[in-house]
């Protein structure tokens, strides 16, 4: 055992720093015990008491720094002193400038005066509380979380309405404010068409079609899927409509929703009636007569809605490339399918994309099943087992609990795809690949091995497997839309040019002339 002391004459450090240095010195390798302190009587006594006293220590004055160590390895003494010296010169690393950590909306909104929007995607049990805190701080809210109760939604929207704030959501994936996409959104041109949407992928589809037609979006306000329910009464769609009405940049307004509650539809159309700007109304399963009566522009399908909007914004119909349905393609596919191959299987990540395709099928087919059918008669008995024509929304709660949304991770539908592909009664499998902010960086790549495998297997079995793919995105999106599309084509996938055409093509492929 070696005890060694070192005195640094006339070297002052405050006692608190020295305590902390001693603590760190005791962690140095080979140190049994180390003490660093000024040469006060009290410190000397402490050193004596633990058996490390020495002549040098006794001789130290109150202005001298004492370093004394005890080690079992006499060869290490010099290294130990060197390392202790280093402790005096090493500063604790400073965190990077500007790396202020905020832990609550309250705190952040107070310190970031320019903050104006809160996006909330935490667990649904806590989301409403955060949203209310944001509203109380005069922040507009986008509530991405799902599993927020309808009562909570109503309270939040009432509060936002009183304060004149946007309360987008819950379960609202999409918004574009001042050309900045929030959550799930595609990169599109800035323009004169404003959208209020109670449907996430539906809104993405409209914005992408408008962009494709050479026009752009002024604002896209996502209201959350339940906004047009009886309980919520369309609070945010009405406020959004009013805001776009006043917004100078907006020349044309579009409203989109899944089937709304009747009473709410009436309320919204009343507002449409009073609007001074042209309003395109695209409500799935909507009432054409009522819309027209209200002075609105009725659209039955998404592309149709986009075409109406851009024409109202100044486009000439004859100059638009509207991608009409490819009739020769339909004939060609029909010819490849055997009599046994009768059914469509739609496997979708986007809820409204699924809905639109399903509605198109239902127009001519009466055995269309889904996990999102509102008619209980056509709800799937077992979501994991298809019945006749089946459309699955993988973004629905039954499939997402504990998992990321399929737009973030599309791999959740691989197993189901392979199962459908092996079914000899299946004629066509329709799938969406959603690009844009928030979405997977390579959604096609995720499915590609399964697509190739399925195609090969079908060939071995001597049947044609028709796979219909739709890539939702623009050339400005972070994912390369050309490459995504090319990869599908190379794998033998038929490409649809819009959500609208996806549903229509799938339907037509299986009709073989025996339509209802």
């Amino acid at each position, binding site marked *: 055992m070696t005890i060694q002391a070192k005195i640094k004459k006339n070297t002052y450090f405050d006692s*608190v*720093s020295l*305590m*902390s240095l*001693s*603590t760190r010195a005791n962690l140095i390798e080979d140190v049994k015990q*180390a*003490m*660093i302190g000024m040469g006060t009587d*009290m*410190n000397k006594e*402490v*050193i004596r*008491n*633990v058996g490390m006293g020495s002549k040098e220590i006794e001789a130290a004055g109150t202005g001298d720094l004492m370093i004394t160590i005890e080690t079992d390895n006499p060869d290490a003494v010099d290294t130990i002193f060197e390392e202790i010296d280093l402790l005096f010169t090493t500063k*604790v690393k*400073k965190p990077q400038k500007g790396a202020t*950590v*905020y*832990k*609550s*909306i*309250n*705190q*952040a909104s107070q310190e*970031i005066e*320019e*903050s*104006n*929007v*809160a*996006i*909330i*995607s*935490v*667990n649904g049990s*806590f989301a409403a*509380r*955060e949203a209310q805190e*944001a509203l109380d701080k*005069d*922040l*507009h809210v986008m509530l*991405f979380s799902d599993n927020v109760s309808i009562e909570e939604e109503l309270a939040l929207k009432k509060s936002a309405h009183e304060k*004149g*704030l*946007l309360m987008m959501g819950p379960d609202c994936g999409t918004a574009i*404010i*001042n*050309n*900045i*996409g*929030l*959550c799930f959104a595609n990169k599109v041109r800035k323009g004169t068409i404003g959208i209020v949407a109670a449907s996430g992928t539906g809104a993405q589809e409209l914005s992408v079609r408008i962009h494709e037609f050479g026009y752009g979006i002024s604002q896209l306000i996502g209201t959350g899927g339940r906004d047009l329910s009886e309980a919520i009464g369309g609070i945010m769609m009405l*406020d959004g409509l009013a*805001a776009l009405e006043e*917004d100078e*940049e907006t020349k044309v307004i579009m409203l989109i929703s899944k089937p709304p509650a009747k009473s709410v539809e009436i309320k919204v159309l009343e507002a449409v009636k009073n609007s001074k700007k042209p309003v395109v109304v695209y409500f799935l399963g909507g009432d054409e007569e009522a819309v027209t009566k209200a002075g609105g522009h009725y659209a039955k399908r998404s592309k149709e809605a986009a075409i109406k909007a851009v024409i109202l914004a100044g486009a000439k119909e004859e100059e638009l490339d509207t991608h009409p349905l490819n009739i020769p393609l339909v004939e060609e596919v029909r010819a490849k399918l055997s009599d046994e191959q009768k059914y469509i299987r739609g496997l979708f990540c986007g809820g409204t994309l699924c809905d639109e395709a399903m509605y198109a099928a239902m127009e001519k087919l009466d055995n269309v099943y889904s996990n999102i059918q509102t008619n209980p008669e056509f709800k799937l008995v077992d979501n994991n087992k298809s019945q006749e024509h089946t459309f699955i929304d993988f973004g629905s709660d039954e499939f997402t609990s504990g998992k990321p949304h399929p737009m973030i991770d599309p791999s959740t539908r691989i197993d189901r795809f392979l199962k459908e592909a092996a079914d000899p009664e299946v004629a066509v499998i329709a799938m969406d690949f959603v690009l844009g*902010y*928030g979405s997977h960086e390579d959604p096609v790549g995720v499915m590609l091995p399964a697509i190739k495998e399925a195609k090969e297997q079908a060939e071995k079995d001597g049947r044609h497997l028709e796979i219909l793919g739709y890539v939702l995105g623009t050339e400005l999106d972070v994912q390369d839309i050309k490459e995504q599309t090319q990869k599908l084509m190379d794998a033998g996938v038929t490409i649809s040019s819009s959500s609208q055409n996806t549903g229509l093509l799938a339907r037509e492929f299986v009709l073989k002339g025996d339509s209802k």
Partner: protein
Amino acid sequence: MNKIGELFNSEINVINVGIDFISEDIKKQGAVATQLEWAPPARGNVELLALLDSLNSEEKQAKIEAANKEAVERIVKSQPVLIGYDQAINCVPGMTKTTILHAGPPITWEKMSGPMKGAVTGAIVFEGLAADLVEAEEVAASGKITFSPCHEHQCVGSMAGVTSASMFMHIVENKTYGNLAFTNLSEQLSKILRFGANDQSVIDRLVWMRDVFGPVLRDAMKLCPEGIDLRLLLSSALHMGDECHNRNVAGTTLLIQALTPYIVKTDYSLKEKIEVFDFVASSDYFSGPTWMVLCKCALDAAHGIENSTIVTTMARNGVEFGIRVSGMKGNTWFTGPSQKVIGPMFAGYKPEDSGLDIGDSAITETYGIGGFAMATAPAIVPLVGGTVEEAMGYSKEMLEITTIENPNVTIPVLDFMGVPTGIDVRKVIATGKLPIINTAIAHKDPGVGMIGAGITNPPFEAFEKAIKALEEAIH
């Protein structure tokens, strides 16, 4: 222009709560997004959230806000003035010759921690109630001694807080609200009664404090009828780099500077005066108890306001940590286990030697100084083991659980931010964030003394109990 219109005409600036990629995507588009480091409120406890919701109902909230406003106003407007020194038996309400006051919430002799037992037996010997420490233990256990928390007698006591009849006390008067508060005198060095040391040297020092130090201070203050405005000194001390719990260098200088003219004018001998000045100079801690009693004086004025959720006491007896809340009148304590104090230790001691958190000194954090004013005392940042910037963060973080900034006590380096004042039980529960306390570490065994200093928190449990009681009490 309406607010949505305003939004359409400004740059998007997002606060993102939850999934990271959302803020990353926004930044990619050239807009500003700030990612919150979010944790579920009430630590994810659904039962507590329900209690919070109940207290947040419009009607209750209005009552609570009004009561809290009054409570913090009373804390901020209090003007504690040192008006004298005297023996506890002469001034402390309820003090008797066989009463021993202690730190923290109520506790029986059997349950006391090592340091507190050491201090109690030392005090019994000092008061002449036993001949030696062995007999003192018998006396303590006999039932002849009345044990009571300092806090229930308008007092505070640092560390073990042991206060007996003949000890000299500061007497502080709240000039705004009229209430008095008391605390005993600093024993200066580390091997002292309040840390559980009790050998002859400790008793001898207590005797000298009773016979010389205390009387000199008492008679000096008699020459100063207007008293010494402690809040002014406190504000200056903060501007000079003290947080007035663990660092008292500036405060002690200011206090002795204020006392000196009167001490000099007393009739005591030069030798006695020199002893007094040497004793004060022997440790920076001389003014530590003074700031504690200032805080106590202000917080007592804010106690007992119906419907208030403001914390008026945080105190520890070495076994339990107790809080009192303004809206729960009198001596209603909410307790949980005392926590470990984490920080550097004097040479030769290890974390396992530490006693648990002890003392009434957390009254300073309750008022808004100490750990809450960490940013003003960069010199003691090593206690936290982090950077100066992190220390700044502590003070700002405490704004999250408090009600206002005290305009009279400010932190220059934070642009003269007032110290965070009025800990709100609701906010502690909602944020799950606990008050931060700077404090000393006592050895776990009696008779040893101070072995380090560091940082600790109250147990969340105490606040859980408080919110339950408040929810029942507020209608």
